[in-house]
């Protein structure tokens, strides 16, 4: 373990981004993600990068659009209300097929909400996040190590598929310190012949744009984009299974909720209850096949969330009526205790799971 250091999740994201070659960060402070910006402010000037605190979130996301157009790795980070402000920019990035990394360290909402951890931006992140037909790749870390690793993966996927990758974390993930190893295996960089880097009088102009006034042409760009999404849904799904081998009850949870659920699952197992966990690491694409396969063996699903129940809809779609799907949740900045999750598991068990 000698090579591991203790880092906050927010700092791990920032350092991993730098190691992944990101030299352009634009942001605006908001709790609980401010350490990402603070870290970038300290490091970027020393390595010839750009740290810029923009006048607003909207300005920051449009600066991201600008750098992304040149093919350079670029990122911004914020927390829930700030991500809403970036919504327009996220849609434009999608419309222009630009790669970028956006970090959302979620806090309770709606509105200005609070500053404590939440997962209530799940719908916003996975169903597009703004106007128009589009998706982002949504990565949900459950440890500081994954905060770092998924940041690297996010940049790589963004480049490969020319789209935004979002890290969907929460206040605990951002503020928590855990040992982290920053020894990554990087994929080979992707060529970006579409980037606006100057023609050198040797090629046609590249144009970055999301305006298509001819509906048939706009329809084609959407059809083409969704063909690419299909490839992602086929190849890029990530999830973890925990104690699922003989499970009769399946907990679905991501991020901090999955960590809490693991405690509850261990306690339930001590009482002889066969329960496991499927933890989506990519929320889009959602591990639909994993849940569908589990639905063939498992009698009951339990979605544990820091929201009023958002991911539960995707679990239900995947399970497709083959088993009941219940909810165990806290919201508004509150976190379910392991005991609450354990009670929910036991009540399903005692109610007679198949």
């Amino acid at each position, binding site marked *: *373990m000698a090579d*591991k250091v*203790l880092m906050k999740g927010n700092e791990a994201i920032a350092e991993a981004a730098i190691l992944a070659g990101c030299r352009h960060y634009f942001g605006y402070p908001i*709790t*609980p993600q401010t350490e990402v910006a603070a870290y970038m402010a300290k490091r970027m000037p020393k390595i010839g990068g750009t740290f810029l605190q923009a006048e607003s979130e909207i300005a920051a996301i449009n600066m991201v659009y600008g750098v992304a157009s040149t093919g350079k790795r670029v990122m911004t980070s914020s927390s829930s209300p700030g991500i809403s402000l970036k919504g327009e920019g996220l849609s434009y990035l999608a419309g222009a097929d630009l790669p970028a990394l956006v970090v959302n360290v979620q806090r309770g909402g709606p509105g200005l909400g609070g*500053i*404590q951890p939440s997962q209530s931006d799940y719908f916003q992140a996975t169903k597009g996040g703004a106007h128009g037909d589009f998706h982002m790749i949504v990565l949900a870390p459950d440890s500081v190590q994954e905060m770092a690793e998924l940041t690297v993966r996010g940049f790589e996927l963004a480049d490969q598929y020319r789209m935004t990758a979002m890290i969907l974390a929460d*206040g*605990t993930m951002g*503020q*928590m*310190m*855990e*040992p982290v190893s920053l020894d990554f295996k990087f994929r080979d960089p992707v060529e970006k012949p579409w980037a606006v880097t100057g023609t050198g009088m040797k090629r046609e102009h590249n144009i970055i744009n999301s305006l298509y006034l001819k509906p048939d042409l706009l329809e084609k760009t959407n059809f083409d984009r969704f063909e690419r999404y299909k490839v992602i849904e086929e190849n890029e799904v990530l999830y973890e299974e925990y104690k699922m081998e003989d499970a009769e009850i399946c907990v679905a949870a991501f991020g*901090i909720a999955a*960590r*809490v659920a*693991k*405690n509850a699952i*261990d306690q339930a197992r001590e009482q002889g209850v066969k329960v496991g966990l499927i933890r989506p690491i990519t929320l889009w694409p959602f591990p639909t096949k994993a849940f569908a396969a589990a639905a063939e063996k498992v009698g009951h699903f339990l979605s544990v969330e820091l929201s009023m129940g958002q991911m539960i809809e995707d679990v239900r779609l995947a399970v497709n009526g083959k088993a009941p799907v219940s909810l165990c949740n806290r919201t508004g900045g509150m*976190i379910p*205790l*392991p*005991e609450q999750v354990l009670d929910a598991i036991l009540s399903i068990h005692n109610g007679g799971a198949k």
Partner: protein
Amino acid sequence: MATTQYLFAGFGGQGILFSGKLLAYKGLIDGMNVSWLPSYGPEMRGGTASCGVVISDKEVASPIVVTPDVLIAMNLPSLDRYESAVRPGGMIFVDSTLVERKVERTDVQVFYVPATKIASDHNIPKMANIILMGKVLAETNGFENEQAVVDALKKVVSAKHADMLDVNLNAMKIGRDYQEG
């Protein structure tokens, strides 16, 4: 030892988060899995500060400390708030300079250390947290690997304040050797 959960609580500025970080680094150096989760937000600015540290020989599941095995309370509001949460059979360490009342629980081990007074007697103000930490480590077999304590301190005392390393070490030893009289 499978999993031990520590909760540090006190006023902002007492070095609560620092103590927790020190313990987490010690755990890391000992080859354990660790997590450190602070309270965050406006309450830290002059209000209460707390952090939970989990040290385990297994993967740390939830980093949220709800029923601590060890509570380190550096002010009265912290003891009032968390005394009842400690696991039966657990330990409570109290800075008895700042907490005048006694612990009411009878099913836990209690250690009263007048850490703030000791710090002031030794003319090392701001070291009360480290003095108390010395006692915590002494009572939890933390000094079995004394080099790990030194190495952990080196990790958390920033390079800018490297001159404070000896002061910290000294404070740690004062706490380690303190006996309630």
